[in-house]
């Protein structure tokens, strides 16, 4: 077991999968000698060579489109897009091609690619470097969407993603990249895609979140009176949604608060709220509460902490939900 940051855990998973399966190739802007702008692929080009860790031209649509071709021809591409804000130009290739190929060919052609993308706010980055577009890709059939919040989950989920026979978007909350270390097993292991994690058991209210917000929620919980018993769920996988885990918890607590960085309207919180209502209607003692980013453009960094749900706002949401 090593004591690793999220960046290191991901790097380790990449190295191990490249070692294990020579069909695995990494491609993207600056992924080579520079190790990516966040250094997640550091050392890999030295170890595996340029043909397996390929710097590409500055063209996100190209990166995904070429990865689709690699995947359909039997490779296991791991493209990197530098920031979630630059998924925009790749949207069409992802949603209309990678996501549809298996279905439109009735299984004849499949696209086993794992797209790695740093996601979310909180690091004082420039414009378009702090968004949270997970709901967009969840609404698009044919993609799996993963967003681990801890090094250990990241390694296990990334290995699952790479071995998955279908396209997976692997969002890496950049705010967590180096924020803490955790024991991560050296050996390969997988964590199944599609399983949420109960971070903390509790009886009064269920809090559902994912990505960096997990830590804001933990902070909020620390600030709440001790007698408030909170069940905290880290979704880990965004799509498919582990509705069972959530529903079981809400049936127990009767209350739910959902926390995410993305804008409120049509965010993933809406889907969770709708599902909880559909499945736990008779158990609900209060409306499902959403504590999210606002329906504004993600602000530049002077205001980003006003925008992102922080411990205070989350605490308020939990109290509001409890008070209903």
């Amino acid at each position, binding site marked *: 077991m090593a004591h690793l940051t999220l960046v290191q855990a991901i790097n380790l998973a990449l190295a191990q999968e490249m070692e294990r399966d020579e069909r695995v190739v990494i491609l993207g802007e600056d992924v080579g000698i520079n190790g990516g702008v966040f250094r997640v692929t550091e050392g890999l080009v030295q170890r595996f060579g340029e043909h397996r860790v390929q710097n590409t031209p500055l063209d996100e649509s190209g990166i995904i489109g*070429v990865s*689709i*071709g690699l995947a359909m021809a039997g490779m296991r591409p791991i493209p990197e897009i530098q920031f979630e804000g630059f998924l925009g130009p790749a949207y069409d290739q992802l949603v209309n091609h990678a996501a549809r190929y298996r*279905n*439109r060919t009735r*299984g004849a052609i499949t696209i086993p690619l794992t797209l790695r993308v740093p996601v979310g706010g909180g690091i004082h980055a420039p414009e378009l470097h702090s968004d949270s577009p997970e709901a967009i890709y969840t609404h698009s059939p044919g993609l799996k969407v993963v967003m681990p919040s801890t090094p250990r989950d990241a390694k296990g989920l990334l290995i699952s993603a790479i071995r998955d026979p279908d396209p997976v978007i692997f969002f890496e909350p950049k705010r967590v990249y180096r924020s803490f270390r955790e024991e991560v097993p050296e050996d390969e292991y997988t964590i199944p895609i599609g399983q949420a994690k109960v971070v903390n058991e509790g009886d009064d209210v269920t809090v559902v979140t994912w990505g960096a917000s997990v830590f804001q929620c933990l902070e909020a919980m620390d600030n709440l009176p001790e007698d408030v018993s909170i069940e905290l769920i880290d979704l880990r996988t965004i799509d498919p949604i582990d509705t069972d885990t959530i529903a079981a918890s809400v049936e127990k607590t009767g209350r739910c608060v959902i926390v995410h960085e993305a804008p409120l309207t049509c965010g993933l919180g809406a889907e969770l709220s709708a599902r909880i209502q*559909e499945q736990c209607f008779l158990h609900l003692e209060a409306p499902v509460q959403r504590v999210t980013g606002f329906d504004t453009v993600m602000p530049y960094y002077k205001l980003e902490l006003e925008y992102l749900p922080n411990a205070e706002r989350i605490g308020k949401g939990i109290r509001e939900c409890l008070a209903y």
Partner: protein
Amino acid sequence: MPRTTVYKASIDYLQILDEDGVLDESLGMEDGRPILSDEQVMYLYEQMWIGRELDEIAFKLQRSGRMGTYPQNKGQEANGAGSGFAMKKGVDYIVPAYRENITMHMHGLPYHYILLHWMGDERGNKIPEGVLTTPISVPIGTHMLHAVGIAWSFKLRGERERCVITYFGDGATSEGDFHGAMNFASTLSVPLIFYCQNNQWAISVPHEQQMNSPTVAQKALAYEMPTIQVDGNDVFAVYKATRDARAHCVENCAPYFIEGVTYRLGDHTTADDARRYRSEEEVAQWAAKDPLIRTRKYLESREVWSDERQLELEGRAKKIVQEIVAAAEGIEPPVSDDMFVHMFAELDDDLRRQCETLRTSSIGQNPDQAGLKAEHQNA
């Protein structure tokens, strides 16, 4: 070096078989023989003829409500036939748009797959094992990037005898993904032929509203990619250019660009009426350059083709196409499950439930959910 020339380029145009079916011997002969034997030309002529017969029948199928929108290949057949013939079946990969029926077929795809596609049936894309083509691609310009990935996989695995060819129209060159594919292919240096079927129109948008460049071929200069313009209605020129391009690609593990200058003689698709935007004279001019007519003239000049052979072919083509239509129409209707089962290798709970309860529920509501009264469940 104050004011100096840092870059120079020029592009060739190739025509071998002229509009009257006369072969340019300096270009069309090698080792004293035509680069395509009479048998080969007859094969290509037959393929083109059958392709056009399919077009005619497909048009009628659409008009009589038996098929959806269909894009005819008519007038452009020499591009797909000549280039497809230069590629190695079972070795090379074909990445078509939607006017390469003949190429896909020559590389092993049963024709009824193509009809199925336009009949609104995904099974038309279920490429049989061992057939090396991607399915028809409707969104313009996106598939060339996939071709780059396939070609790159050949390079990565050291499959040095293999090459990819991708087809697209003049309009497709305007998409950002065309640019990306050209740039990736040239910087990664992968064995890939870009074949542009420049048929002068993108629906109603003519060449000069699509691009300012007089040739499409010159677009390759931006990527330092070898490039040539050919008479796309001349099956010899198309064949030769593609054959040589393929040799270049395989030898150098690098891409090549070919512009086939051609013309769509029909409407854009069955949903289009080309008379709205182009003149009869223009169409007539290009009809005179029809690849089928000139290939037949050539065969006649070689004295290997006769009216009887032609009649025989016409009858045979009709029968073949009837069988294709029968195969496409004879398939059992798809079932709703088909929408679901190919979404992922393994379906998640939501999809499984949606698939299973499709008949019993409105979805959104789990049929065995608390509170739902039994008597209404199957209403």
